[in-house]
């Protein structure tokens, strides 16, 4: 194939060198791996739910600006609902209200908490003569009479600030919302808070056993991100090792070979993860799949080397000769596939999500180290240990002979049939909807997901659109015109689909105006004068107790207010549409200075896929160009090199199309799949085409016979490596974390489809187009 005489001898010299220095190589490998493994102790695991956003992510910047202006939005929401589903008084019972009051009290005691909002401590205001009374809605839970309960229910279910946020519209679920200011990058703080919340809820369960409790919020989300990372780290690793062991034992039928392969993949994973530790990388849910992926893609190298050795021994060579021959034959293709795979993964650096940079770099490092181990450690290891070769079942070879024959004979049908399937599947791509929803990143094995689902169905939504509406100057939020404008916006938003709650400043003003007029409902409107509004607000602010101030809704200069819009069960597409509509409405209907844009965690995730795909588009194109260039040079043929693009690129489109038909929603993982799989599936094409070209050039076979030759030579190897790769990514897809799950499924699908394209489409295409000198 590509070997020139000079490099062939160089490779031969390398082979004899490896065997001569086998003991030092063994010792050095173990020493090196041990040294790398020591880096593992420095591995940091992050549970930051914002880790998927780069520092210059515009949505993150906008959200952090909002947080710095008002208050940091880390939350824990503890929902409470009576166990008895059948009617009754819902949450307006002494027992439920006592539980809520106790949870409210406990909320203040949670570490880093800054604010607690609940049904019981809601700042209810009313007028009493010339006194403005601002009091907790449920000031005392002892001796609540039926009349008290009815009064509380009446107020709560008519309070625009409570309904669908802290009280379900049907009065059957309520919640305590705790706000936190978390120390920066503090993994332990998240664990500390969530552990404490768990204890508080356990205590409540003990004291009030007739109630159910559900917990969600951004802090709990972060905890789930951390838990998912740990789960994946502790479960995926062992599973993949078992899978590799079984597949290898079955394929190689050799203990030494199997152990050698297993050691190589372990060494590769240890090298990469140790490097991650030494270099201070942070592991998170987004890149914790790294060891699994490394072990999967690192297998192929050793399989090629070992199976060629065994093939040689079976055909009568002694072990030393077989090893040397294997190194000679495999050095270049293995080198080539290493480079292409590494390029595919390195392209992840174009992603906007920092965890993917680490993932790409770690896998690339793992693949390169696996290449080194496969060509040094493996030959040394199998040279030292006994390697028994059993007679091969001839069936497989015969199978691929017959298979090649089938492809040659049915080439026209296959060509057009496959083309039709490709177009048909690729046509499903528009069905794919980019949809990242961080609560749905976790499958139902996580309590967090189940609780969040309950809360969405019964209490409130988790999609929050945050607006900081500028009033155009210091104190300007008290301008009646501004308040009226905000009110129009809030009213407009309340009429939008799937929007269930809007918290806006005018509601406070209207209520105050009413209070100041002896609670006359006719005065539930915006005050007429600027100064009057300002003075009402001052009076109200002076009446609020500790931690219940308006600083989370009004900026310090009183020049802007925050409006929070909560949606229920919206897809990312609906979220983007809703935000776009709101931004446009503001532009069209509000004075120029008031136009702003929706922000918040929801917005960040709504755009995460889109933004990552934009970044990865460049990365994918560059990776494809580089890999194709390498292919053209390696195969020494421009047309064949270009032709190879088809079976390399089309599978990803087909996989996405199939996904579009079957599932539809895809998250941020989708952005990297094309580039990653391109680097992997190209290996099959390289092996097939190099054999095909060797047959054409060296044996002067025509296209049809060259196809038969290629099938006979590499059909089995391609089939087995694909099976291993697919199995590995299927293991990744058992993750309970959506990003890893869909990365696993999409990649496995693409790899299998790519093999089908290499077997059923590439050969007919070659036979159709490659009609030159036969």
């Amino acid at each position, binding site marked *: 194939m590509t070997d020139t005489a000079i490099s062939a001898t160089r490779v031969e010299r390398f082979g004899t060198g490896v065997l001569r220095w086998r003991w030092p190589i063994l010792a050095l490998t173990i020493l090196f791996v041990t040294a790398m493994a020591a880096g593992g102790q420095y591995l940091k695991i992050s549970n930051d739910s914002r880790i998927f956003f780069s520092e210059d992510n515009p949505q993150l910047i906008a959200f952090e600006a909002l947080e710095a202006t008002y208050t940091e939005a880390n939350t824990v929401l503890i929902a409470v609902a009576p166990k008895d589903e059948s009617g009754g008084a819902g949450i307006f019972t002494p027992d439920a209200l006592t539980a809520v009051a106790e949870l409210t009290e406990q909320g203040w005691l949670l570490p880093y908490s800054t604010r607690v909002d609940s049904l019981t401590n809601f700042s209810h205001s009313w007028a009493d003569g010339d006194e403005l009374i601002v009091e907790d809605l449920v000031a005392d839970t002892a001796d609540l009479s039926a009349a008290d309960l009815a009064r509380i229910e009446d107020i709560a279910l008519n309070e625009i600030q409570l309904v669908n946020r802290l009280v379900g519209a049907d009065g059957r679920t309520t919640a305590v919302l705790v706000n936190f*200011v978390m120390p920066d990058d503090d993994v332990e703080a998240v664990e500390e808070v969530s552990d404490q919340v768990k204890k508080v809820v356990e205590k409540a369960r003990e004291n009030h056993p007739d109630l159910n409790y559900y917990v969600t919020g951004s802090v709990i989300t972060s905890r789930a991100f951390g838990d998912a990372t740990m789960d994946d780290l502790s479960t995926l690793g062992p599973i993949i090792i078992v899978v590799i062991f079984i597949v290898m034992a079955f394929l190689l039928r050799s203990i030494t070979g199997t152990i050698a392969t297993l050691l190589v993949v372990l060494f590769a994973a240890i090298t990469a993860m140790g490097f991650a530790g030494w270099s201070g990388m942070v592991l998170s849910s987004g890149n914790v799949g790294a060891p699994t992926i490394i072990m999967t893609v690192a297998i192929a190298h050793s399989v090629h080397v070992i199976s060629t050795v065994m093939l040689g021994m079976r055909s009568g060579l002694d072990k030393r000769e077989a090893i040397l021959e294997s190194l000679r034959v495999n050095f270049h293709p293995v080198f080539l596939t290493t480079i292409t795979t590494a390029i595919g993964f390195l392209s992840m650096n174009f992603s906007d999500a920092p965890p993917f940079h680490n993932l790409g770099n770690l896998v690339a490092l793992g693949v390169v180290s696996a290449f080194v181990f496969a060509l040094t450690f493996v030959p040394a290891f199998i040279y030292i240990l006994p390697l028994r070769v059993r007679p091969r079942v001839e069936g497989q070879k015969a199978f691929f002979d017959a298979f090649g024959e089938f492809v040659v004979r049915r080439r026209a049908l296959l060509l057009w049939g496959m083309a039709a399937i490709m177009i048909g599947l690729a046509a499903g791509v528009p069905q794919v909807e980019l949809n990242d929803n961080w609560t749905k990143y976790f499958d139902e094995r996580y309590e967090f997901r189940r609780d969040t689902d309950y809360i969405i169905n019964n209490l409130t939504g988790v999609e929050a659109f945050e607006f900081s509406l500028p009033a155009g100057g210091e104190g300007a939020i008290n301008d009646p015109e501004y308040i009226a404008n905000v009110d129009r916006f809030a009213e407009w938003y309340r009429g939008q689909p799937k929007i269930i709650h809007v918290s806006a400043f005018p509601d406070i003003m209207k209520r105050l105006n009413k209070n100041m007029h002896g609670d006359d409902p006719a005065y539930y409107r915006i005050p007429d004068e600027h100064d009057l509004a*300002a*003075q009402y607000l001052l*009076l109200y602010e*002076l*009446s*609020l*107790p500790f931690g219940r101030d308006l600083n989370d809704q009004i900026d310090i200069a009183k020049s802007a207010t925050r409006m929070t819009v909560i949606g229920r069960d919206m897809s990312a597409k609906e979220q983007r549409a809703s935000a776009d509509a709101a931004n446009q409405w503001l532009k069209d209907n509000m004075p120029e200075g008031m136009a702003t844009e929706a922000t918040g965690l929801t917005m960040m995730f709504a755009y995460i896929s889109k933004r990552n795909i934009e970044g990865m588009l460049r990365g994918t194109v560059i990776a494809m160009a580089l890999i194709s260039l390498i292919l053209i040079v390696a195969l020494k043929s421009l047309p064949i090199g270009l032709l190879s693009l088809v079976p390399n690129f089309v599978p990803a489109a087909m996989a996405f199309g199939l996904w579009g038909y079957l599932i539809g929603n895809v998250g941020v993982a989708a952005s990297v799949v094309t580039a990653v799989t391109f680097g992997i599936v190209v290996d099959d094409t390289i092996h097939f085409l190099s054999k095909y070209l060797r047959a054409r050039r060296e044996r002067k076979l025509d296209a049809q016979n060259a196809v038969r030759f290629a099938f006979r030579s590499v059909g089995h190897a391609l089939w087995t490596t694909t099976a291993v790769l697919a199995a590995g990514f299927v293991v990744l897809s058992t993750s309970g974390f959506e990003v890893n799950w869909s990365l696993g499924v999409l990649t496995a699908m693409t790899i299998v489809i790519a093999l089908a394209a290499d077997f059923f489409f590439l050969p007919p295409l070659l036979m159709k187009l490659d009609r030159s000198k036969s």
Partner: protein
Amino acid sequence: MNFLPRRPAAFFPALAIAAAFAFGWLPALAESPEEKGLRIALEAEARDRGFGNYTADQTMVLRNKRGQESERHLRISVLENEADGDKSLIVFNRPRDVKGTAMLTHSHKVEDDDQWLYLPALKRVKRISSSNKAGSFMGSEFAYEDMTSQEIEKYTYRWLRDEPCGEMTCWVSERAPVGKNSGYTRQVSWVDQDEYRIWKVEYYDRKKMHLKTLTVPSHQQYLDKHWRADEMMMVNHLTGKSTRLIWQNYAFGADLDDSDFTKVSLKRAR
């Protein structure tokens, strides 16, 4: 060796140590940390007694985490009232839309304070419901309870240690609120032993976390007796927000009496 505060030099060190050991077992004979803490507070109050009344201008500079700033301008008058609690009148000057708004406080030694607000736009006096002194004052990092003179009776005290502060030595004591309306579980203060001035206060919230720190960079003495802060800096460690409270134009002994601190007088406050 707090039981020998007056004449430590009169003893030989060895004797002092022996005494410390001997009396250390008999705390009843010594001043307890609680007693000492209370004594310091009482002495600080006693030293300021007799100021009569004073007025001053206050400027608050609020700063958020982004570094944006906003100012509030107030004028405060305080009337000493030994019988129950001091009376104070705060007139708001800026923001402009609350100009002329005035807040009257009658503090009480034991019960909740009484507070009224005059709203010029409404031309009415509104009573503010009690139990609100722990909330944010005008969006700042100060609670009303941090800004005003606080009656001794509303706290329990405990001396913790002596500590050098600048060139002086400070008593470091903590006090815990008696009532349930405070936002704090305790406050730790640094009071210098020369003039009983407060230099620093650490505020601990309900979960006993260090929430805020007040520092006072400098004081001025008025009428050769009364020390007043020139400036107070309050930093919220949790939110990263801060507020600088600048005191200017202190004037003692103005023509003020009880009639200037009534609901009726609120309306003519300017």
